[in-house]
């Protein structure tokens, strides 16, 4: 890890979901990196393939390897990084990469963490960044499986602006510890979605505070302000649930981490989509422009919110928690 991590022990309180200094250092470093090396313009232009240079630099910071033994981090450290990456709308298969570093073994794990091998996590024949991917994982409700393409993937331009691919796959092996991997994946997707949504809500709020109509800032109208406030609450809840899931995971508490990861994922998908819709409304015509402040985020939220295994799978997890395991 290349962060300046203070060695203060975490405060001994239940449910201290604030980041400790080490986690905050990760979040700050990633935010600085994104601001310096991959700003809004870069994000808007980053359609198509994964920008390998930026990806390599991100890996060089140690961010992608935080879950490896060498990284010495837990899921909460990864969440700290993901919140900053989501807020900056950083492209590429982020959650997929963290998942892979959790379920793969060396030397592959190190290559993924080092940024030289890209990971595609998908299902149903549609594979993110298929042509660039060196590792392909098929994921469903309960398992994570190593696969390889049976034939060269056909490129697909996606709604999110990324080039994915269609291809049949040959199944290799189920990976061990899929349950923990799914918790990692859902938690990080939730953290990313919540941060992206929050980014939109903050931008829309800043806009609403200055943009005038009928002689008043539009944020002065409850029809504008209340939906933003409601979205902010729900995104904040999703982000907090993701942090809770990570705390439990890092403490080795399987059942609650599974439950909180699913709750975070379900909440973040819905809150993210609603935030995208509300912010499009707040920005009006500007939000419909290709280079405006909303679409490059909203399209990615929409895509992430349906990424396999989608929120339906998390709903099944949540319901089974209520009925099988003790619902605390």
């Amino acid at each position, binding site marked *: 890890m290349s962060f300046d991590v203070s060695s203060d022990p975490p405060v001994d309180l239940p449910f201290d979901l604030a980041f400790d200094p080490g986690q905050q250092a990760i979040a700050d470093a990633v935010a600085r990196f994104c601001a310096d090396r991959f700003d809004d313009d870069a994000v808007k232009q980053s359609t198509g393939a994964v920008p390998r240079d930026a990806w390599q630099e991100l890996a060089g910071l140690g961010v992608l390897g935080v879950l490896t033994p060498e990284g010495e981090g837990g899921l909460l450290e990864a969440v700290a990084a993901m919140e900053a990456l989501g807020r900056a709308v950083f492209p590429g298969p982020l959650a997929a990469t963290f998942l892979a570093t959790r379920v793969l073994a060396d030397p592959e794990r190190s290559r993924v963490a080092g940024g030289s091998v890209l990971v595609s996590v998908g299902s*149903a024949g*549609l594979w993110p960044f298929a042509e660039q991917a060196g590792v392909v994982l098929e994921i469903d409700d309960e398992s994570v499986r190593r696969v390889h393409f049976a034939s060269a993937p056909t490129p*697909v*331009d*996606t*709604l*999110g602006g990324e080039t*994915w691919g269609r291809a049949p796959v040959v199944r290799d092996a189920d990976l061990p510890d899929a349950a923990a991997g799914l918790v990692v994946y859902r938690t990080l997707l939730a953290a990313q979605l919540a941060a992206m949504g929050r980014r939109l809500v903050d931008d829309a709020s800043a806009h609403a505070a200055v943009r005038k*109509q*009928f002689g008043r800032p539009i944020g002065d*109208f409850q*029809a*504008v302000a209340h939906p933003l406030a409601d979205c902010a609450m729900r995104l904040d809840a999703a982000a907090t649930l993701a942090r809770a899931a990570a705390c439990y995971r890092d403490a080795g508490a399987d059942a609650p981490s599974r439950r909180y990861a699913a709750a975070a994922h379900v909440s973040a998908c819905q809150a993210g989509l609603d935030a*995208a*819709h509300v912010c*499009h*409304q707040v920005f*009006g*015509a500007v*939000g*419909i*422009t*290709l*280079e405006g402040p909303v*679409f490059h985020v*909203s*399209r990615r939220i*929409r*895509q992430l919110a*349906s990424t*396999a295994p*989608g929120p339906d799978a998390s709903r099944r997890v949540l319901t089974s928690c209520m009925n099988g395991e003790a619902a605390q």
Partner: protein
Amino acid sequence: MEFGWADEDARHRDEILGFLDEVLPGDWEAISKHGPGSDQQAAFSRTFCGEMAARGWLTQHWPEAFGGRDASPWRHAVVGEEMWAIGEPRGAQYMNVNWIGPAIMHFGSDAQKAEHLPRISSGDVLWCQGFSEPEAGSDLAGLRTLAIRDGDDYVVNGTKIWTSYVDNADFIFLLVRTDPDSRRHKGVSVLLCPVDSPGVEVREIPSVVGARYFHEVFFSDARVPASCLLGPEGEGWNVVNYALQYERVGAARYARAARTLDRLAEIARERGLLSDPTVVERLAEARGVCEAARVLTYRVIDERAKGLPPSPHTQLARVAGTRSDTVVANLALDLLGAEAFEYGSYGDANFRLAMTAGVAVGATEVQLNLIASRFLGLPKL
């Protein structure tokens, strides 16, 4: 509609459907995908509207005196529904026949009528509307584009924004401030401005919802003949309000939404998804929303057919229409899942629609304000 439509209107729907079958090219879906602002669709609309005009249908609801057939608003609604459902092959010309022509009939000089109405009626002229400005969105009171009389011309300076179709248009229905000292709705006028006037420059703003959808139009000492003034100088606000009364029925959004919904129900059936009550529930809710928008729109048409003045029912129908767009588009996304990811796919198009519905039609909250004050008697918001 098995009941309710007069036989001749029902027959006309069949005629229109047959006509569409005949004249729409095989790759119409590919053409229409790029939106009515695209070069392909703009070009096609001249052919298409010419064919409609040849059959006497393009402006059939106009008075006979101006090249119409005095057809009822119901018949015009039949045409609107089928056009909208299929992707509006008339392109930007729906504005010509719906409200620009009628505004010219009412306020235009004899020369203006003679110049514009036959061209609109024959289907080979494209108009666009120039209302919004960077500092004035839903609130026209902030209008700043100035048109100062100078001899036989107006000299126009200012910027219009979000202007659709302008780069393929011949004329712009342009709202300007002719009295620089005036405020709010006073001192505003309408110019029937040729887009190729010197000093007019157009720049596209790339948009989410299709090519050539948004533009900025810059007026730099643009000279527009004073003969282009529509109605009395300073009465532009009245002209616009009159014209927009003709728009009170609005686009038949529910027709497109219902068509999409039929297709989704078919997909759901083919894939065996109808055993999932969640899918049944959402299809049914969406169908209810579309039918609601339809009957609320029919009521507005009915009022217009009876010559009644505009009522708040217009706003109810508009909010319902927007809701049908949003509900169906969201359902499409959820039902199609990862398929919706593909750029240019059915799902993708619906995503763009879902996100932007309500913005494009003029903010839904303005409509809700009007419902609250005019329909429920709440304080004016």
